[in-house]
């Protein structure tokens, strides 16, 4: 039987969502970032934990690269992105002296840092903690899930692109979730088609249909398809808030709809 966890720094975090994919480059960090921004625009207090130690993308996506991390009496203070402190972030990206420095660590060392990230960041009161992960089903993923298990995560959002090559890896990720006892809240299909800005023809750049078929096959909810959107790419490059700045852009409706589904699927907290 599991011993009761020390409440510690996650005591004030109401709901934890992991964003996973077996496949690299499908948009986990993008979805994590936009979900966090959309939840914050819905009035929630959100934290993002970036456990991609080799390729920490989130600081740049939120315009926070180069920010310093400070110690406080309860551990590391997360980096706040706004004056109201409604959105905060912790990433190994903040701990690198030089941004081009590679984190060339084997599994055990990555596990040790992840445990620290989970227990030693003073998040304070949060409605949601979104945990962005690297691709795969290995050390980081096991360490993250084991460290978070005592806090009963809400579940996992699994991201794929439409092609069979992605879906092939993501099927394995669903097996991983099942084996680790992690509930799958749903599948998001990213990069679902591109509408030419010149002639409005929609092209399936990365094939089509894979995400929805996978959701049906695996018996998990399909949360939506997010189209390729250069405005979204640009705001991520520049670290701006896409949800605030581009309400008319193709990806906006899909992203806000996914955030709404997460809000609807969140159980009401007992007082």
């Amino acid at each position: 039987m599991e011993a009761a966890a020390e409440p510690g720094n996650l005591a004030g975090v109401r709901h934890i969502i992991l964003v996973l994919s077996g496949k690299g480059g499908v948009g986990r960090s993008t979805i994590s970032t936009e979900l966090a921004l959309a939840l914050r625009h819905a009035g929630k207090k959100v934290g993002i934990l970036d456990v991609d130690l080799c390729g920490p993308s989130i600081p740049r996506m939120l315009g926070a690269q180069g920010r310093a991390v400070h110690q406080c009496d309860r551990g590391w203070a997360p980096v706040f992105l706004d004056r109201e402190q409604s959105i905060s972030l912790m990433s190994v990206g903040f701990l690198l002296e030089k941004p081009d420095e590679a984190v060339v660590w084997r599994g055990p060392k990555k596990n040790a840092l992840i445990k620290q990230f989970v227990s030693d960041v003073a998040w304070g009161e949060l409605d949601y903690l979104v945990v962005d992960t690297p691709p795969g089903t290995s050390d980081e993923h096991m360490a993250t899930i084991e460290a978070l298990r005592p806090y009963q995560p809400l579940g996992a959002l699994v991201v794929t692109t439409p092609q069979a090559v992605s879906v092939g890896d993501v099927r394995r990720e669903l097996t991983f979730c099942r084996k680790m006892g992690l509930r799958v809240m749903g599948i998001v299909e990213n990069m679902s088609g591109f509408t030419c800005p010149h002639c409005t023809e929609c092209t399936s750049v990365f094939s089509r249909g894979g995400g929805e078929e996978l959701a049906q096959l695996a018996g998990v909810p399909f949360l939506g398809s997010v189209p390729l959107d250069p405005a979204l790419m640009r705001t991520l490059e520049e670290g701006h808030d896409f949800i605030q700045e581009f309400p008319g852009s193709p990806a906006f409706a899909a992203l806000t709809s996914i955030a709404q589904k997460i809000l609807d699927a969140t159980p009401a907290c007992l007082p």
Partner: protein
Amino acid sequence: MEEVPHDCPGADSAQAGRGASCQGCPNQRLCASGAGATPDTAIEEIKEKMKTVKHKILVLSGKGGVGKSTFSAHLAHGLAEDENTQIALLDIDICGPSIPKIMGLEGEQYVEDNLGVMSVGFLLSSPDDAVIWRGPKKNGMIKQFLRDVDWGEVDYLIVDTPPGTSDEHLSVVRYLATAHIDGAVIITTPQEVSLQDVRKEINFCRKVKLPIIGVVENMSGFICPKCKKESQIFPPTTGGAELMCQDLEVPLLGRVPLDPLIGKNCDKGQSFFIDAPDSPATLAYRSIIQKFCNLHQSKEENLISS
């Protein structure tokens, strides 16, 4: 947080756990107990096995999803068009083995008489099987692939890798070090989000003294099939691979535009060159493969004459 021991002696060195730089490392006790030590015989055995393999090329990227496996597969297809060239494609992406699907293989290992493939994907009985392995087990699999597969006489061994700079990368570099790796081709896409990871990969290569043959910028622009106008789906907001290559003094092998037929053919397990021989993407690939051969051969000549 503990300092990253920049001078980590390596888990299997004689100094493991005992070096000055080991102080404070979470693995110190494990290393000092000798648990991390692996016999060096494997490296010697691999060196022997690799004597019949003329050239070894790694395909790397710090970033996931930029097209490493697609490039590896099509480099293999391109080189194998010469029937007299023997190509082997090794997929060491143990958690996400894409190569069997991209090459249209379900378990048989030869695409053509002169193009053979090895991947952990062949060892999985179901498409839903997950490979949930920690580092040491992945390393063991890579060692087995290199040591226990009967490679035979091979002109090019192309090694497709997972994203990142971790166990798999350290292992393959370590196991092949004495067998001489010709170099690495590094794949990126134009955006800074990719480039920032790829710079790390270039630094990793320099750290482990792995020569860089060049960089390929994938998904570089999209031509609408209807109106033929170009869009930048993944905008090169910080100068793309071209500027990065200039800054870091590595060759840019070329740029490949997005073509929906690439994804479709990978899904079907076919060579994209056959389905779309005149596509700008095919032409770009062919030019890159030619440049790869030129650069790679001139490196060889420099080595021989030096």
